[in-house]
């Protein structure tokens, strides 16, 4: 059984032209690192939050999300609390937004243990020190007495990771955990997350806009566009032979770091901009930006994810567009 399982999850908000999520199917198994990649407004954060039952206010939710076998859609407060305090934890982009600036780090880390588990202060402090050590902070005892403003962004994100681990979760949801950090700090945070994930055999869902980062750390990648998953494949395959024109377009838009000498080859951007919630399109929502779109074909609703080799693709043209068609326009790295 998968640790995290989305089955045909749709979320609609009143007053929008298209659903926020439209039939999401996604699984994460224990010990697996999976990325969900997409641009702003694609619905990737809403997807991650759904795993904790954090649906947008006023949303109409359809389908299923199961965390370790427990249904989240329609779950009562007790079941949700059990998931949030036990099975699954989430790490957000901005560590400062998730911590009370006038309480000490130690109070923040031990609150859940003392309130939910009824631990004594001493026992909870010992555990917090152990966790701060596990995320590589140099002086855990001192950090317990510090306030959030005394730590840098990278250090505070490590505190947030320690907090996410207090309950001993089996599933880690990471929503752009390194986007606000410098590149070398990003490497450090990803190293810590990777080590903890391997040591504790955690299932991990990494939400990111950075397809290169996803490729560097994940076993499998889901690509999302306008509330739908358009392609999923093992990392090497997704990068080497993208099947969906959007995946290929994303790869073609990233300037390569190492390229042959001479002036760099011109990028092939995807025309237009990502679709907002107030825009809708009949049929394939990517068709308006797609260089391969065919009238009369792509104005029908795209097929559900279908197998093409080891990739699953939701595109009318998946069969006729060979991998070479796509890589000819995209460069990858």
């Amino acid at each position, binding site marked *: 059984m998968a640790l995290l399982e989305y089955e045909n999850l749709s979320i609609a908000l009143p007053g929008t032209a298209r659903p926020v999520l439209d039939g999401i199917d996604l699984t994460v198994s224990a010990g697996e690192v999976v990325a969900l990649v997409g641009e702003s407004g694609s619905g990737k954060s809403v997807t991650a939050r759904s795993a904790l039952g954090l649906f947008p206010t006023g949303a109409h939710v359809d389908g299923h999300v199961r965390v370790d076998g427990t249904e989240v859609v329609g779950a009562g407060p007790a079941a949700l609390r059990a998931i949030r305090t036990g099975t699954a934890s989430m790490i957000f982009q901005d560590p400062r937004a998730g911590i009370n600036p006038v309480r000490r780090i130690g109070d923040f880390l031990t609150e859940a243990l003392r309130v939910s588990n009824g631990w004594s202060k001493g026992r909870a402090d010992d555990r917090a020190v152990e966790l701060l050590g596990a995320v590589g902070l140099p002086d855990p005892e001192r950090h317990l007495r510090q306030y959030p403003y005394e730590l840098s962004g990278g250090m505070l994100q490590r505190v947030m990771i320690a907090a996410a681990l207090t309950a001993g979760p089996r599933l880690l949801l990471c929503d752009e955990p390194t986007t606000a950090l410098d590149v070398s700090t990003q490497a450090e945070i990803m190293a810590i997350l990777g080590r903890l994930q391997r040591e504790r055999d955690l299932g991990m869902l990494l939400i990111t806009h950075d397809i290169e980062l996803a490729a*560097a750390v994940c076993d499998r990648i889901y690509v999302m566009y306008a509330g739908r998953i358009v392609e999923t494949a093992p990392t090497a395959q997704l990068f080497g032979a993208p099947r969906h024109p959007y995946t290929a377009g994303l790869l073609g838009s990233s300037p390569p770091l190492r390229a042959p000498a001479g002036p760099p080859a011109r*990028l092939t951007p995807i025309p237009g*901009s990502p679709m907002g919630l107030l825009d809708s399109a009949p049929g394939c929502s990517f068709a308006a930006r797609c260089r391969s779109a065919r009238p009369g074909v792509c104005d029908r609703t795209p097929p559900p994810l279908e197998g093409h080799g080891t990739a699953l693709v939701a595109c009318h043209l998946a069969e006729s567009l060979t991998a070479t068609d796509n890589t000819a326009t995209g460069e990858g790295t």
Partner: protein
Amino acid sequence: MTVDDHARTLLQVCGLRKAYRTGKTEVVAVDDLSFSLRAGGALGIVGESGSGKTTTARMLIGLERPDAGQILVQGEPLAPTVRGRAARLARAKAVQIVFQDPYLSLDGRITVGATIDGALRLHGLADPAARTARTRELLAQVGLGEREAAALPRKLSGGQRQRAAIARALAVEPAVLVLDEAVSALDVSVQAQVLNLLSDIRRDTGIGLVFVSHDLAVVRYVCDEALVLYRGRTMEHRPVAELLSDPGHPYTQLLLASVPRPDWDPDSISRRRRELGPAAAGGGA
């Protein structure tokens, strides 16, 4: 340097220094920074937070006054203080900037077309019909049309707003355009559009670009030279292709290794980062 070289050098920066004081402690944000930029050239200033790259950008456009050093634009020193309309306009004509967040630099109450029209009027284009034509031309240059010209900034997408900010900066016909993390907040598909636009502008106008960014791949695409800053000091300043294929300074090597890629090894990067920490600060070139 010959007279001809002087004429072709758009921007010359010598021994620039800026320190900030909080109470008794002094933080040197930029220390002994020197570089020059020729007409049509593009220099990338690369660094992480606290490297001094934004302070440099702000000194170039006169938002911060350097403690020491000199900035010459087309051979003329950038005056430390600007008083009066003529001096202000001359400063604007020397260097323009595009910030990361165009929401903060475009006037939210007037249309994009009116913003550009205002810049043209301020810089002496008196004839309204000529201004309208030039506004249209500038917007077309950045890929925006009539519909976007008539829109308020909040009605545009992030990429369109950033294009509008670039068009506004170009309206002044500055010698140098500074871009401070100008593509960092854009989605990658839109970022690629703006990057192509910047390379077209370089080709077509001969403007000099100072491109401040943390993203090495983007700097490689836009610039021919790059300067790596760490805690205010210059670590390395070389042609960008050379810098990336054969980084000389350990800090540049660390930055390059930190960019995620399929054979990425974050464990070794964080080890090297810790070994390097204090050494890189003292080891400025």
